[in-house]
């Protein structure tokens, strides 16, 4: 995979807010097409600031963000958002139209696509997120949260970005709703070929879905690698107050018995157990 050209290159990026707070310092990161990544770390660690640099909402104070060969500093926002979409943590911060159809059509209209193309894109995005046509005329605020989130995601998908970043997709959702949203993102990743990046505090969700984890703390990348590998470094994670999921902790606690400290699922743990006692 590393032989191909990264779709996003983050080169030595620092970001300072106008009040002087250094939110990112010296970030280097290559993101390839088709990845499913998780950005983890406590609040204030720089996850969201980094994400906003990736789609051009923020320009780095120093260093460069290169997306699809375009430097974010010299590229218009409307060019950037066609490539990298960002779904807000709270869909209500992003939804502002009085019906779902207009909400999804807003982005494509804003980048001045011809109206027939807008129609095609809205229909396609609604189909992908599973939003029934009967909802098109509904006010987004009267939909359940899971459905509002889908409208929010559809409005980003309509721009057909290669990369989609979803900020805390499962916050406030129960277990079943969380899996529904995550299965949907996994499908976008696998069937539709989008690069998906989630920002989350939910480590069992990360273990189950993300193939690569970037752990951040105080504006720096503390660890970056395959999920099992990053979760195998509990000391590094502890720096940002993250604990691996219980199944991984159990495997680590029982490492001396022969369990793999990078175990991510109950099924994998069970397989190792059976080999061990066979």
């Amino acid at each position: 995979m590393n032989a191909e050209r990264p779709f996003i290159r983050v080169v030595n990026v620092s970001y300072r807010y106008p009040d002087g707070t250094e939110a990112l310092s010296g970030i280097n990161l290559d993101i390839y097409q088709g990845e499913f990544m998780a950005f983890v770390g406590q609040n204030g660690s720089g996850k969201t600031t980094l994400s906003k640099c990736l789609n051009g909402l923020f320009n780095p104070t120093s260093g460069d963000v290169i997306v699809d060969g375009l430097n974010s500093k010299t590229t218009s926002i409307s060019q950037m958002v066609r490539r990298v979409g960002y779904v807000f943590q709270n869909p209500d911060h992003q939804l502002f139209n009085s019906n779902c159809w207009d909400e999804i059509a807003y982005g494509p209209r804003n980048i001045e696509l011809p109206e027939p193309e807008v129609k095609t894109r809205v229909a396609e995005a609604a189909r992908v997120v599973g939003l029934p046509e009967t909802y098109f005329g509904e006010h987004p605020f009267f939909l359940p949260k899971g459905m509002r989130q889908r409208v929010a995601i559809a409005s980003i998908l309509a721009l057909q970005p290669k990369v989609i970043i979803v900020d805390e997709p499962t916050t406030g959702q129960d277990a079943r709703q969380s899996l529904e949203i995550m299965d949907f993102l996994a499908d976008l990743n696998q069937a539709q070929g989008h690069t998906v990046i989630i920002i989350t505090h939910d480590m069992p969700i990360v273990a189950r879905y993300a193939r690569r984890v970037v752990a951040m703390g105080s504006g720096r990348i503390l660890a970056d690698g395959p999920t099992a590998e990053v979760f195998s470094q509990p000391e590094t994670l502890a720096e940002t107050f993250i604990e691996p999921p219980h199944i991984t902790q159990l495997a680590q606690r029982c490492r001396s018995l022969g369990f793999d400290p990078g175990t991510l699922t109950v099924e994998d743990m069970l397989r190792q157990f059976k080999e061990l006692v066979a």
Partner: protein
Amino acid sequence: MAPIIEIQNYSWRYSYAKMPALNGINLIIEEGAFVGIIGPNGSGKTTLAYSLDGLIPSQYRGIKQGAVNILGREVEAYPAGALQKLVGVVFSDPEAQFTAMTVEDELVFGMENLGLSVPEIRERLEWVTELAELGQLLEKPPYEISGGQKQRVALAAVLAMTPRVMILDEPTSMLDPVSRKRVFDVLVRLKEEQRNTIIVIEHNLENLASLADRMILLSNGELLLEDETHAFFEKMDLLLENGIHPPGAMLFIHRLMQEGYYASRLPLTVDEAAACLTEVVARLKPPGPASSRG
């Protein structure tokens, strides 16, 4: 211990809704218990919390059947304000409950309303400040502190009034890992002090399972399961059917039980699970000529 909460055949339907939010609930909670309530969104968890502190039926329109008794008395029979001294609720959105300009005033406000003496207020203020680690924040305005700090202030403010029943409605759902851990640390200390009955509504079972004495599962307004925590999680199939995802380590040992490798108590924590697994492996591992090296 005497029951502090006794709910009999209780149903509640909001007047705007077709279906009851709670349906035929029977429940007894003993004084001093630490109770966890879980269930999918929309299952009636928050309605149950509101029913215990009297917000339902006094502040909501709807139809009530059956009885909710606190200390042997129906919630409607308490004079205005009296029930809220017995039952305190910490909401998932702490901002909704803040009124003061500093954290200290926020903590003192409720106690003043209770008509406590100044020395008593001072003593309790010290206690909750220490317990919830708010020393650095007392002078700050509540709107300037972080989400996790707000949640601890909200918890401390309710705690300072020493309600005999304290209900926390998803206290960590909006928090990052460090803040979540600190809120649960406060709950651990509260449990150790055993001053009151604590009811926690929470999706995060990794933290809750090791703390709760008893657990309740609500689904579609019905109480599907209520039991001591170990026994509760032993009904794993029922939990999974209802979209509840138990912590992975517990689920793993449950699978060992299902497949006949283990038959003792279900572990609630990673430590307990590690002890279980060590024992099972020691018992089953074929004695090799030399121990295998990995």
